């Protein structure tokens, strides 16, 4: 099942290259098929299984005595991410149809390959396979930004590459250390508990660095606004929606999963770092005049919450973090897709120039309001559930220290209201219309926002299969 999910996008990428004139339709068909497959896989996913399921394993190569395998499987933490990737790939293909006009075949092939590699990161149960997919994601996103980005794209692509490349080197070192120390790279069967505390701390520090850059957490976040602002809309959707989650996922999988006691030692530090990043991200959002840049920084804000949830480490905190990852994926994708549409119709991301959007593009404006409220954490939408779980878990774990999270929550409201008051409401001289835009990508994401917000049990059920003790 999982191999099909990996192979389908790759197949459509190859087909798109072979038939460049039909590339966009091939990609759409591939994305639709992927979503259908992902939906089908819901039936084979068992909520009663705590560990990994849907396993597949084929021997791949040997490094001396270390056996590398193509080993895939999912659990409650990775499975929602796989579903999210499938959904966002469809959205990314749909929003590309109006935006991408040069080198279509290459764009869709890269997008589908990217999707395959991201799913690969989430389902890999072999460290080498995971690293291979992790790097491939980096390269695919580099090309998406470099080739189809905005005017300053070369700079943004190189900056993205340098930051995440250094993170990858840290991840690679920790991979080699783990392979040396345990003689195995199989995540499902890995046991790091017999290693010396110093080695465990070193491995965790390397992993943590890689994840913090990727998530990103301040002060390692400066690649993110450039990459986001310069990337094409589809790139931003994937970047914010799923690529940032790779860091958080790895921290959950290898950090909490295998080095739980080190995480516990570093708990207060990580929690404070997460909260600081969330507060910092929110403050920077308040200072932006560029809509896309503001949305980009809101990712720093939300990923700060995710880190806080991971740091809390209780089953409620981890569930909250995993929930927040999925929910932010949906919301950020919706925000970026809307920003892309607004830019396509108005030619600007400048908030002052966009004043009065509700008069010219009412549906877009209301969707923007909906997505923003979801990002702010309004009850009834997905954003609320994850943050609420993290808040409750935080107070249960840390007591008064958890008050650190309060300004982060409040500031989210502030930057959202500021943005909405400037962009959506008020009267301006904007000339634009929203006719002709396909409502499908926006409708899908808005529906997902509301559905998961109103019935969070659907998602919590999947996550809790693995996180409940």
């Amino acid at each position: 099942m999982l191999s099909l999910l990996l192979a389908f996008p790759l197949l459509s990428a190859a087909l798109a290259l072979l038939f460049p004139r039909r590339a966009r339709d091939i990609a759409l068909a591939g994305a639709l098929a992927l979503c259908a497959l992902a939906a089908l896989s819901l039936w084979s996913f068992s909520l009663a299984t705590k560990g990994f399921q849907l396993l597949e394993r084929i021997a791949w190569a040997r490094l001396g005595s270390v056996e590398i395998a193509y080993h895939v499987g999912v659990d409650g933490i990775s499975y929602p991410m796989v579903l999210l990737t499938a959904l966002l790939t469809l959205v990314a293909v749909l929003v590309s149809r109006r935006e991408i006009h040069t080198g279509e075949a290459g764009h869709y092939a890269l997008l589908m390959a990217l999707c395959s590699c991201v799913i690969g990161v989430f389902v890999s149960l072999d460290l080498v396979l995971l690293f291979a997919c992790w790097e491939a994601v980096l390269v695919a996103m580099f090309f998406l930004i470099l080739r189809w980005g905005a005017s300053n794209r070369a700079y943004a692509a190189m900056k993205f590459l340098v930051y995440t490349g250094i993170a990858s080197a840290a991840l690679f070192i920790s991979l080699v250390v783990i392979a040396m120390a345990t003689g195995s790279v199989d995540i499902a069967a890995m046991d790091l508990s017999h290693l010396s505390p110093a080695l465990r701390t070193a491995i965790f520090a390397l992993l943590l660095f890689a994840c913090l850059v990727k998530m990103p957490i301040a002060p390692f976040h400066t690649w993110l606004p450039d990459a986001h602002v310069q990337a094409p809309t589809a790139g931003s959707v994937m970047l914010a929606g799923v690529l940032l989650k790779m860091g958080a996922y790895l921290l959950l999988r290898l950090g909490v999963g295998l080095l739980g006691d080190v995480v516990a030692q570093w708990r207060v530090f990580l929690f404070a770092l997460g909260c600081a990043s969330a507060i910092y991200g929110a403050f920077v959002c308040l200072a932006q005049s560029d809509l896309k840049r503001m949305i980009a920084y809101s990712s720093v804000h939300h990923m700060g919450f995710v880190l806080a949830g991971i740091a809390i480490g209780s089953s409620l905190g981890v569930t909250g973090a995993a929930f927040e990852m999925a929910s932010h994926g949906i919301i950020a994708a919706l925000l970026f897709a809307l920003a892309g549409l607004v830019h396509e119709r108005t030619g600007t991301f400048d908030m002052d120039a966009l004043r009065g959007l509700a008069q010219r593009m009412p549906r877009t404006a209301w969707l923007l309001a909906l997505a923003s409220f979801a990002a702010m954490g309004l009850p009834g939408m997905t954003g609320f559930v994850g943050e609420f779980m993290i808040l409750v878990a935080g107070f249960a774990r840390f007591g008064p220290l958890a008050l650190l999270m309060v300004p982060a929550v409040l500031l989210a409201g502030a930057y959202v209201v500021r943005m909405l008051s400037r962009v959506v409401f008020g009267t301006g001289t904007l000339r634009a219309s929203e006719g002709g835009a396909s409502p499908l990508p926006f409708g899908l994401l808005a529906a997902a926002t509301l559905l998961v917000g109103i019935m969070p049990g659907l998602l919590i059920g999947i996550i809790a299969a693995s996180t409940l003790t």
Partner: protein
Amino acid sequence: MMPNPPLPIASLPPIATAAGLLLLALFACAILDVGGSRKGLRVAALAGIALALAMALALPWIPRAAGPGIAHLLREDAFARLFAALSLTVALCVTLAAKERPGSYTCATLLTALGMVLAAAAGDLVVLYLSLELVTLSSYALVAYGRTRERMEAAVKYFVAGVLASALMLLGFGLLIVGSGTSAIAALTLAPGPVGLLALGAIVAGVGFKLGVFPFNLWMPDVYQASDGPVSGLLAGGGKNAGLAGLLRVMAAVALGVPQWRIAIAALAAVTMLVPTVTALVQRDARRIVAYSVVAHGGMALMGAALLTPLAVTGSLALACALALASCGAFIALGALASHGLASLDELRGAGLRNPLLGACLTLCLLSLAGIPLLAGFSGKLFLFYAIAQDGMPWLAGLAILASAVSLWYYFSIIRALYAERGSGKCYEVGHGTMAALLACAILTIVLGVYPEPLYRLATMAAGALF
């Protein structure tokens, strides 16, 4: 009933046969060149190399014949086979790419390939010396091909450095032969004291000249940058590895019991991979950047010679094979671009978009050199870095990973130039031969990246044959 007699082919010693086939092809080419048949010459050369390659590769499946009387001169082992296969694959690509070149060019390529095959199989110091000289001498001519000012200058530099290296190598070999009373590599012993150290030092310098060991690598960037694309490809993919093979053979014979050498070679390897990596960061010529990276990769391969454990040597061999194809492909593509006046990063702007297939192959080769997973370069680096860390020098592996991470910047600055903008240049065409060679390099790079097991197995067998 009598058992079937073995097939006649089975009784042929593969390396000697491959060398014979190359010689045969060389004679055929020389005659055809005089006769003026360009097409026949190409066919003869390609057929000769392909047959020799088949001979080298097919050996595991053919029962080993007892070697003829020269077995002590030419070792028919897995180590020789791996390098023969590697050199001949590179030579095949180069010959494919050199379609428009004169017959003498092809003949020199064949002669270089012959030298590379013999160097890896050498069982005797004299054979090793002669075959390395064969590689060097025939490639002087190749470097000077075209006789532009730049190439003549590069050839002279190469020559002067090469003569010095030959002298050092002779000195080292001579001291070894005197000290151990034989020239057979397997029976060599290292004299204790300063004489032994001098011998080993001279050998590391002289043989390391081919591999590009610091500081005997100053000629490399100039030569790789100025030469015709296929020539740079041949030197980077094959000539360099002939040096590695020779060095490993001698080191495995004499340096195993000398622990203080481990740290010296390790330091040399570290300097060899770090200095060019930093130097490459400020270069603006794409071929020069790749040249520096090839030197750095030579330093990485040297790490195996520092540790001299089966695992570490396997890693070195895997890396050398994995990167040979990528560097050969990169030089062929960049050479083709340079012949259209596109050499510096500024001139290369948008070049990848104007010829998508060439751009894609070049990008794949560069990504492989950068060590991006699912390409051969990553397979090699993964094994090598793991092996070095596992067998006792984690700090060296750490430095190699650092060098590898830094190298991302300059590979990607070439890729950035290729794709960032359309550029103002006009469209350009490259020959079918060049395209075929590039595709071969790119496809092999992907295959060995996705499924590295054959590479690992051959390298393990080859390393096993050394000890």
